[in-house]
């Protein structure tokens, strides 16, 4: 065990970066047996346009995996295949496999899959309902009916999203009354309310100020013991701060995937180095 150094306190990169090492040696490499999700030979198409080429990637359980790369590189597309939300866009299809706990997601019931694999979007998208009803929506469609259970779940989820203290007195107010950062944490709480095994975040902080961003990053740390997290970000410092493993996408290909410290300190590919040192994009 090396001494723990908080990566939050020293976000500068790449040379001075301190990454919290993983406790077990086996988990240090991204290709361990603890893979919660796995993509194999994944090719993705929007109509005739191919957005992803032969992606092979393993997402480790209870780790934060960051996906970085220039815009249009396919990182969001990849994220959105993990819970099959891309299916709602017309003309999309993919070849290859996406596995959740070793089972092909295509073979699973899509609503059950999405309950297990939650998602938070780039723009906070609270429903035009009260704060309470926003959080309670997921549990409700998934069969929770008792008012008491719902109240417990809502409080638990809001506490996990570190939002409880701020909103406990206005649960019946419309969610639109919250600030941008609060709305995004509400969306995380909403996603957490159905106890997802995996949480996908698509550039969740891109519209937020640094303080709100920090709060969300702290939140991710606090939930990662219960949830596997995949975060797409255009912000390399953020990837360096929060992620255990990082994948670098470019032009629809996964250029490199490794432990975050390796990606930022000692990348094996020239493109990765150019990107993380700011010589590209």
């Amino acid at each position, binding site marked *: 065990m090396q001494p723990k150094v908080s990566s939050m306190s020293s976000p500068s990169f790449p040379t001075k970066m301190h990454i919290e090492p993983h406790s077990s040696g086996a988990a240090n490499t991204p290709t361990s047996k603890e893979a919660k999700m796995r993509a194999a030979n994944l090719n993705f198409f929007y109509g005739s346009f191919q957005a992803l080429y032969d992606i092979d990637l393993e997402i480790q359980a209870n780790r934060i995996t960051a996906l970085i790369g220039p815009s249009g590189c396919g990182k969001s597309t990849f994220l959105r295949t993990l819970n099959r939300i891309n299916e709602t866009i017309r003309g999309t299809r993919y070849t290859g496999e996406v596995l959740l706990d070793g089972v092909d997601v295509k073979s699973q*019931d899509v*609503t*059950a899959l999405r309950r297990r694999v939650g998602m938070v979007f780039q723009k906070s998208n609270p429903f035009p309902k009260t704060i309470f009803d926003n959080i309670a929506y997921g549990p409700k*469609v998934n*069969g929770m009916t008792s008012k008491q259970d719902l109240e417990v779940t809502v409080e638990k989820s809001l506490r996990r999203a570190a939002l409880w203290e701020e909103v406990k007195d206005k649960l019946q107010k419309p969610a639109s009354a919250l600030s941008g950062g609060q709305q995004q944490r509400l969306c995380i709480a909403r996603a957490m309310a159905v106890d997802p095994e995996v949480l996908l975040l698509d550039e969740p902080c891109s519209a937020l100020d640094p303080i709100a961003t920090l709060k969300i990053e702290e939140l991710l740390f606090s939930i990662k013991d219960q949830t596997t997290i995949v975060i797409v970000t255009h912000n390399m410092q953020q990837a360096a701060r929060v992620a255990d493993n990082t994948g670098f996408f470019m032009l629809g290909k996964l250029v490199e995937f490794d432990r975050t410290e390796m990606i930022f300190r000692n990348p094996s590919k020239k493109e990765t180095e150019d990107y993380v040192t700011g010589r590209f994009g």
Partner: protein
Amino acid sequence: MTLRTRWRYLVNNVMLALTGFCTLLTISILFFILGYLVWNGFTSLDLAFFTELPKSPGEAGGGMANAILGSFMMVGLATVIGVPIGFLGGVYLAEYDGGWLPPVVRYTADLLNGIPSIVLGIVAWNLLVVPMKTFSAWAGSVALSLILIPIVVRSTEQFLRAVPNSLREGALALGANKATATLTVVVPAARRGILTGIILGVARIAGETAPLLFTSLNNQFWATSPNQPTASLPVMIFTHAISPYDDWHRQAWAAGLVLLAFVLIANMTARFVVSRNAS
């Protein structure tokens, strides 16, 4: 799959089927109208319909040549009156936005669009039939143009607004003044859309009946000038359909087919123009 999940999918599929049925029912009405009208219309249509005057009530034969001409004349006059007003009004709303007037005009145009056409007929009657002391094609045309104006205003504005601002700025940057830029760059860029709006508006007034009932009235003979009561296809369909004579019913079917064919062809042409514009 749990029982609950099965139930949720069942609800999902039942609602899909139900809403699909709603859609199918609505669409089937269109096909019923088309089918029934084409069937009855074609068997009733003959050369005389296009070349002869109507016969006296109850007498077989004859046609609606005067009504076809009357419709063309009144729709044409209404277009000549209504399109310039609507077009220029639309240009103002789109290009000189700002201040209190444009939003008020916009809202008023929408309201005008919602006034029942028969009420506009009364206005045209007051403006022309009362002072002229006779029903006339002029009065009918004015009534129709009152319907056409708000349609053209709003569609012109909408399509001018769709023209990217960079085009306007490009023209202004070359030293063109606003009027020149609008006339030579913005309007040409939106011309297909504007034309589409006009065609749809014209198709709409071609089928209007209510405002003609007491403005142009009807006429069994040729109207020799726009100052006389004038026959039109929609009014002819109305009077023939409610008459007790079988041969008049036959004529009504023929007139209905001709009118619907005109309206639908105009609509399809307009939408074809727009979809080409969009792609």
